[in-house]
């Protein structure tokens, strides 16, 4: 789907169900106003996040990707975020090699109680992405154009 022109950029968040999705809920419950760009994909655990999801998003249409999980040692599944931390940190090194600004991807930890922090994270990241502007993308296959045209209608 296309972004709200001139107003929003495409930002995807991958949030673990137990901490960060809850933190985003807490921010909502607290009516902590945030920029509207972010779209959240809920996953059970940051350890579920295949770094390729991030690459997929960045290559195929996202201007920014934000990952958030439980703070280290607070993982609902005990260890998932520890694996995530290593994998996300490593995959970040691929972005400059691809010609993608590494600031388009960040990961952080937000607990279910940290509504204020979530607001801050969303504000900061959205601002960061708006500072970078819309991302340039490698061309997709022309034979798939028909799919995009329908989506744009």
């Amino acid at each position, binding site marked *: 789907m296309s972004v709200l022109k001139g107003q929003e950029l495409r930002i995807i968040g991958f949030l673990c169900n137990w901490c960060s999705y809850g933190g985003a809920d807490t921010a909502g419950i607290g009516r902590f106003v945030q920029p509207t760009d972010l779209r959240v994909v809920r996953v059970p655990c940051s350890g579920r996040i295949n770094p390729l999801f991030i690459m*997929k998003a960045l290559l195929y249409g996202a201007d920014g990707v934000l990952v958030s999980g439980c703070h280290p040692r607070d993982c609902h599944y005990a*260890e998932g975020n520890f694996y995530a*931390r*290593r994998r996300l940190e490593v995959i*970040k090194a691929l972005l400059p090699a*691809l010609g993608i600004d590494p600031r388009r991807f960040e990961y952080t930890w937000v607990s279910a109680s940290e509504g204020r922090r979530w607001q801050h994270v969303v504000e900061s990241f959205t601002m960061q992405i708006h500072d970078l502007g819309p991302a340039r993308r490698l*061309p997709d*296959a022309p034979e798939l154009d028909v799919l995009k045209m329908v989506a744009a209608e």
Partner: protein
Amino acid sequence: MSIQEELQAVIKEALPDVSCVIGWREGPEPLRAAPLFVRTPADADAFRSGYFAVNNPAVFLPEYKGGKVGVVVKGCDARSVGQLLAEGLIRREEVKVIGFPCNGVIDVDKVAVALAGACDPGEIQAAREEGDELVLTTPSGEIRLRKTAVTADKCGRCLFPNALDADVFVGDTLEPAVSADDYADVAAFEALSLEKRMDFWEQEMSRCVRCYACRNACPMCVCREHCVALSRDPRWLTQSDGVRDKMFFQIIHASHLAGRCTGCGECQRACPARIPVLLLKRALSRRVEDLFAYRAGVDVAGPPPLLSFALEEPKIKERDW
């Protein structure tokens, strides 16, 4: 006895114990050796080591799991064997590793560059080494090239010219030419503007024909026919001819090799479109080395870094919001 002859002897000696020994023979083109599978002592006479023995024979090992095989390895090939062993993808008792000191191998692409249009590298009729020079017989006469100009880049940064963890090591060990991999190639690429870097990949990947030679030549790519590149479930890629999907496959390959790539460069060598796909893997290897002091195929004592974790990661500086 030359090292090649010594190796032939060792291979013959190893044979009764193994179903075959994997090495190199002369290929259909003078500059490119082909894999050799020695099953009888007579086969061993065709064995060739040296400057043209570029192929990484470790790529074949997982196929032979369950029986014992021998493999002749250069230093870089030995790292692949080491990483396969560390990940339990092959068993130590099922491989007989025969190592020797490697002085570097040829990069045929560099020969093409060095020829500067004098002829098509495919027209070369014969090649021989003379000291520091490579002498090529072409339809238009002999051409001499400095070996330093046509030796593979990976050899210039090789830290392990002597096969590690070999059961038999033939010859005297060599001193590595350098003391550390400075990843100057990655740094040089990243010195370009982001725009230029993406331009580069757009151009390079447009040549990709999706033959997946890069993947199949990779000794660490053990998924083979189960690779996600061809699967609809999960379905990471379409079958279209877009640069995006092609690039994304390289990202998949690089990410699956993060902390596992030994830098043998076979992916790049195998590419018929000559796309420098090793660069992405090296960008990740550099990061893994920085973060976890881990070099695949060398520091294999513990679990691979991305299959483990530490409660405190001293080198990971998380974003401070």
